[in-house]
């Protein structure tokens, strides 16, 4: 009875795959078991049949000649001879000549085979070198791609950093301006505007001017309704100018009579003596022409002390 392990060893043996230890065990089994010997033989035949699965290839025509020549050379050299074949002494001389010729042929054949073997080696080396070259090229190409990607990433990072830097510059500028504005709070000019005679006295108005920003705010309540074809216009009276400087036409809420506007002057203001609001023609005038309806005293500086609680 052949067990599975022996079957396995027989299959491996058929393909010359046995390890030394396995070979010893298998061969001892072969000696004892005729059935195992038969199976080993069948499996070796089956393994040999795998030769038929190789893609078809026709041996070259010269191979048969080469084999025949080799056999002839070997016989001439005194190699294996047909059994029972006798050679008489008189025939030795021609055989010696033939042997000499055969030796020369063998020597030539050996040289030929050696050179052929060297050529095969060189071909292999060439193939190997070609593969190495291809491998190096592939590696270089891979490195180039990686470097290109890194360069692209770096450029993108650089662009992002540039954008961030611009944002920071803007933030710094904003912060600086805010600081400047906050630092110049003490220099703000604040003035209450009072109604001139003929204007209802319940009108309240205040103007704030920031010298550093050259910008101000005017807030008014209960301003009399505008006559048709007229506009209120704000003026800043700066002693450095011979005439009041226009702060622009102010827009009044027709229902409430309230005003809340941010204004800039048409000329830079160096110091403020007074604020005034006059009634001018529609669209305003370059210099005051109409009657003054609101007028302030000299502006005061704000107190930065905390109010007492």
């Amino acid at each position, binding site marked *: 009875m052949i067990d*599975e392990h022996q*079957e*396995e060893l027989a*299959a*491996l043996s*058929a*393909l*010359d*795959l046995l*390890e030394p230890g396995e070979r010893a065990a298998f061969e001892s089994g072969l000696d004892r078991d005729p059935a195992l010997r038969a199976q080993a*033989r*069948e*499996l*070796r*035949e*089956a*393994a*040999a*049949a*795998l*030769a*038929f*699965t*190789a*893609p*078809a*290839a*026709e*041996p*070259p*025509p*010269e*191979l*048969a*000649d*080469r*084999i*025949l020549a*080799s*056999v002839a050379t*070997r*016989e001439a050299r005194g*190699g*294996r*001879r*047909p*059994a*029972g*074949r006798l050679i008489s002494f008189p025939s030795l001389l021609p055989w010696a000549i033939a042997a000499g010729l055969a030796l020369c042929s063998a020597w030539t054949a050996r040289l030929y*085979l050696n050179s*052929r*073997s060297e*050529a*095969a080696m060189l071909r*292999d080396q060439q193939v*190997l070198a070609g*593969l190495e070259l291809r491998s190096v090229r592939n590696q270089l190409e891979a490195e180039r791609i990686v470097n290109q990607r890194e360069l692209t990433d770096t450029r993108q990072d650089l662009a992002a950093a540039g954008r961030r830097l611009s944002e920071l510059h803007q933030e710094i500028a904003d912060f600086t301006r805010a600081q400047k504005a906050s630092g110049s709070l003490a220099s703000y000019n604040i003035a209450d505007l009072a109604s001139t005679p003929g204007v209802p006295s319940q009108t309240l108005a205040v103007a704030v001017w920031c010298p550093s920003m050259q910008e101000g705010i005017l807030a008014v309540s209960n301003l009399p309704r505008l006559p048709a074809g007229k506009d209120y216009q704000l003026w800043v009276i700066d002693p450095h100018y011979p005439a009041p400087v226009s702060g622009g036409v102010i827009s009044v809420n027709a229902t409430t009579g309230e005003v809340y506007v941010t204004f800039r002057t048409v000329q830079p203001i160096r110091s403020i003596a007074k604020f005034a609001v006059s009634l001018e023609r529609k669209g305003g005038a370059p210099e005051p022409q109409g009657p003054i309806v609101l007028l302030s005293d000299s502006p005061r500086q704000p107190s930065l002390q905390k109010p007492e609680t």
Partner: protein
Amino acid sequence: MSIAPSYLPGAWAAAVAAAAEVRPMTATGEGAPADERAIADARLLRRMAAGDRDALAELYGRFSRPLYATALQILRDAAEAQDVTHDVFIALWEKSAVFESERGTAFSWAVTLLRNRAIDRIRTRQRRSRLLDEAAPADLGYDEAAAPPAADDRASSRDDARAVRAAVATLPADQRRALHLAFFGGLTQQEIASQLNEPLGTIKARIRRGLHKLRDTVAHRL
């Protein structure tokens, strides 16, 4: 009908033609029973042992195609395949006296001699892994659509080569792969396991099952 190749010298051509009529395995496929073929092969070896070169020519006509194709498949080099095939026929000529038909057929003996020589060459040059890496699945000999038809296939559908290929094609793919690496790759058990990324025991079992099934399928033709 004579099928002797026109390139053979006169004596060889006649011998090959005679061989084709005696045992048309590699030519016409009108095969004699397997045992008769093995007996005829063994008889040729006995004649070779007696110095009969015509017997060698006859054996060449029977074995040269599958042996050369196998050598080429293992070595992937035509010049080396020719060298190995040459050496095998010389070995058959020189060792024909020690052939024992009880231990196996002449063909399996010739295949064993050929594989040993071819695999030795591969190992000597230490290029096995490179050759295997270059081998594409379609080159493994089981892709009927991609592989070129065997010379014997062209001759007849009843040809031995075709029968074996068909039998191998019925094996599960993992068994075919293991057998192929063992037969043509010249790898050890462990190397096959590494190549296929499978445990060694699995590889051994696949080889056992595959070879037993192949034996059962083609036994009547071998």
